[in-house]
Structure formats: C-alpha cells, structure tokens
C-alpha cells in the first residue's frame, strides 16, 4: 500500500490519498492522470489494466486502486 501511495503522490502531488474517497468523482484524478497512473501501475506491478477496468469505482480511493491491482495480480 505504501508503494501505491508513493506512486499516487508522484502522479498527483499534494493530495491526501489516505483520506480521499472521491478521487474521480470530485475531479482530483482526471482521465489524463488516470492514464499516467495506469502506466505506472502496469510498470510497477506487472498487471494489465484494460478499458473495462477504468471505471470510477476502481479509482475513487487508494484502497479501491489497491484492490484492483491485487485482483489483477491474481
């Protein structure tokens, strides 16, 4: 999780990712930021994220993103 928080802070500095639960809905992560994040996640965790996975529910919080990564790793 700490590694993920670090990646998130690099993609979008200045956001309290541990507390935010509406990253997409509130516009903190726009589509450009999501793509930057997906590229980093694919690189760090060796997972394949497809357009089907790119829904707000999977990116609204650090926990949701972590769960997505874990699911794809399996």
């Amino acid at each position: 999780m700490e590694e993920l928080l670090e990646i998130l802070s690099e993609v979008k500095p200045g956001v309290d990712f541990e507390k935010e639960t509406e990253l997409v809905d509130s516009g903190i992560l726009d589509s450009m930021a999501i793509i930057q994040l997906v590229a980093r996640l694919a690189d760090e965790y060796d997972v394949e994220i497809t357009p089907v996975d790119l829904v707000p529910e999977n990116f609204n919080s650090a926990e949701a993103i972590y769960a997505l990564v874990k699911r794809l790793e399996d």
Partner: protein
Amino acid sequence: MTYTSYLYFFGFAIVVYLVYLACPMKQKWKVLFAGSCLFSMILDGFLAVCLLVTSLAAFFCGKQLTKLQDKFNAAKKGLSKDEKKQLKAEITKKKKAVVAAGTIISLGSLIVLKYTSFFLGLFNSVSEIFGGIQLPLLYYALPLGISYYTLQAIGYVVDTYRGKYRAETNAAKLILFVSFFPQMTEGPIGRYDKLMPQLVEGHRYSNENFTSGVTLIFWGLFKKLVISDRASYMVSEVFGNYTKYGSIVVFVATVMYTIQLYTDFSGCIDIMSGTARVFGIKLESNFRQPFFSKSVGEFWRRWHITLGTWFKDYVFYPVSLSSPFMKLSKASAGHMSKFMASIVPSACALFVVWLGTGLWHGASMKYVIYGLYYFLIMLLGTIFEPAFVKMSAKLNINRKGKTMSTLAVLRTMLLVNIGMTMFRADGIGEYGAVISRIFQPINIYDITSGTLFALGTDRHDFLVIVIGVAIMYLVAIMKEKGKDILTLVSTGRIYIKWPVMMGLIVAVLVFGAYGPGYGVVENIYAQF
C-alpha cells in the same frame, strides 16, 4: 419538423404519449419503437434507412460477440491454464474481427456521407502541390443525427465486446435504443445499460414525471426561443458583415454567439430530456453549469458531457492503453524527466481525441483547428501547472481562494469565447479577420450611435436576453449549491409549482421569438 415546432408537440409527441398511456405495460415499448420509426421517416426517409442499417449491424455484431463469449465460457471448463489462454486468444481475435466489422459499417457510412468531400479536398490540395490530378468533390445528403446515433451504436458494440453486458436479443428493441425519437437528432448519446431498461420496462402516468418533464420542456423552450433565437439575428448580421463593424460590436457579437450556442444546444437537450421524462425515461445529463468552470478541461467535463465521456471511454482509454502507447510510455520514462514522461503518452492520446472531437463537429479544417485549439490550451495548462503552483506559493497566492477562483472562471469564459468564435466563423481566414477586428481601436461611437441595437436584435431584445441570462445564471448558481430549482418547482407545493410553471409558459409565449416577423432558427447541433 423541429423540436420547437407546433407539429412536433401537438401533432407528434402528444399523440405518441396518449397511445403510450393507453397501451398495456408490456406493449408500451412498441409504441416508442413505432413512434421513433415514424419520426425518422417524417424527418427524412434516408435517415430511416441509415438508422436501420446501423441498428441491424450493431444487433448482429452484438449477438455474435455474446455467442463467441458463451462459446469460450462453455469450452474453458476443464482446460489447463495454457489451453485456456490459447482459447481466449483465439476467441478474442474473432471478437475483434466482429467489432471491426460493426464499427466499419457504422463509422463507414458516417465517413462516406460526412467526410468524402473533406478528404477529396485534402487530396486535391496535396495533389495540386505536386501537379497531380484533381478529383471532383462529392457531396452527399447528410441524415440528421448521424453523428449521434452512430456513436451510440458503436458504444453498444464495443461494450458487448468488453463483456459489460449481454447482447440484445430483440432487433426491434435495439432499433429503438439507437433511434429513440427525443434523442435521435441531437443526443444526448446514451448508453445501452442505462437507457434500454427504461425504454422497455413501460411506465404508467406519473404526476411527478409529467410536471417535471413539462417544466423541463418549457425551460428548454425559454432558453431556445427567448434567448437563443433572439441573439441569433445580431450574430448572423455581424458575422456576415464583420468588416462593417467596429471592435465593440464584433466583440459583443462573439459573446452573443456563445450565449446563442449554449442556450440553443442546452435548450434543445432540455426539451428532449423533458419529453423523455414525461414518458418516465431519464436521459443522460449533457450539461452541468459549464460556465462555472475554472479551467478549459473542466469546461469540457461540463459541456456536451455525453460526447466527452464517449470519446474518453471509446477513444482515449483504448488508445492510451494500446501497446504502442504503453511502449511510448516506457520509452518516455527512460529518456525524459519523470514529469514529462508522465505527460507525453497521454498528451499523444489526447491529441487523437481532440482531432476526433474537432472532426466530429464538421468536415472542414475549421473544426480540426477548433479541436486542436482546446487540446493545446489543456496541454499547456498541464505542462505549466507545476510552475503555476510554485509561483503561487512564492507570491503567497491562494489559488483556491474566492478571488483567484473568480478570475479562473472569467479566464475560462474568455478562452471558450475565442474557441466558439471559431465555431461560428465560415472559415479559418474569416475567424482570423473577426478576431483581429476585436483588437482594433475602440470607437465609443459604436455605443452612442445605437449601432449595437440596429442589427436585428434591438434594445427590447437585448433587455430580454440580459434578463433571460440572469435568470439562467441564478438557476445555475442554485444548482451548483445542490438545489435544482426545476425539480423543486415540479415536486413542490401547488402554490409554488403552478405560479412558476405558468410564469415560464407565459414568458415563452410572450417573449419567445416565433410567429410573424421571426424566422425559424435551426438547431445548431442538429447540423452535425
């Protein structure tokens, strides 16, 4: 038949609604289906044929995609991991071929009908440089709404491919989804999983749906007939003869055009959404107070939302996640700073999106530049964002404070106004001439002489427009604060509901630009 005509309301929509109410629940969708088919035939026989071809192509492709997925699900049981992987690859290859076929049929007819002359013109321009042949330009009659229902059908096929839902098994139902009459010519571009259940489930008369739908229809008519159509007369005069007018008049005309465009498009969407609401169907939102945006990016997330989300889901994400772009992402990481490496791949994908968005609006270089204008502004905004953050910290400026937020909103309005002027100008050359006209020395005589009020939109029209925009602004402020006045009115107590509704109806009847002396102003976005 336009959405603001008597024929649409009294000769069509009300008749369909009465038959819809009279039918048994399970048959109601058939009324919508028959009404939509009839509507397309009344508008244009060619449109009806194109709709049928696109819908049937989507139907058969969807069916094939679900069949292939079922085949995979049945065959994978008992297979080893490697065998499963191999089978999946085979099935995916076949599914891709089906999606490609569906997209080629839908998009192909759009490209041939809308863009043939544009591409032939481009070919001729290049050929002329090298002294080559010149091909005759071919113009086809463009069916109304082709740019909207094509995207809707493609979205359905792609989502079926992605396994978001199973394909529709009834061809008539899919034809209804693609051609539902309130959204046929101007959107909003609907999604199958949200719209289809509402279309087929059938709705009884509901007082709430009826009053909220009618309120929305009259709110749309207010925007379209009271504000937009009045503004259109001055806009047409000034853009048609801009060399005759000074900077102030031309600038006012550009602002007036932005008002016209917004009230025309959002007004028509309100009329359509209101019509659907009366039937108990909720269409997707297409606008969310766009002129409260603090950046151009935010503006496009609030303006023509269904087009933006369509391009995001079916162009931006797939392009960004494609292997060439992922490779570009990796290559960037090895050769650039972390910041630039994170921007370059998504900027390239964004370029494709904005090129597509520009071309979607029209087949000319003007629209290409229009799309790329917004792309450039957003890209520069992203590149310079860290510098702005640093500078603000150094100068102790609170970027989220009220003053800076207001300035950001005004800056966005100005940038959007510049973009929309390009939308209205006849070509790039004319656009440049109109903009340079604005920067000519200000001549106060333009105001004192009364020129501003002698261009088809007189003092009385200006007053009506200003009051209309002020009312719209107040409603938007309330909506930003989470209070939807229109919903409150339609669901509120009778002593609030009826006076407001009557006020709206009287305002449309008294101040609407219709009848003798007023020409019919075509819906701007129906031309795409």
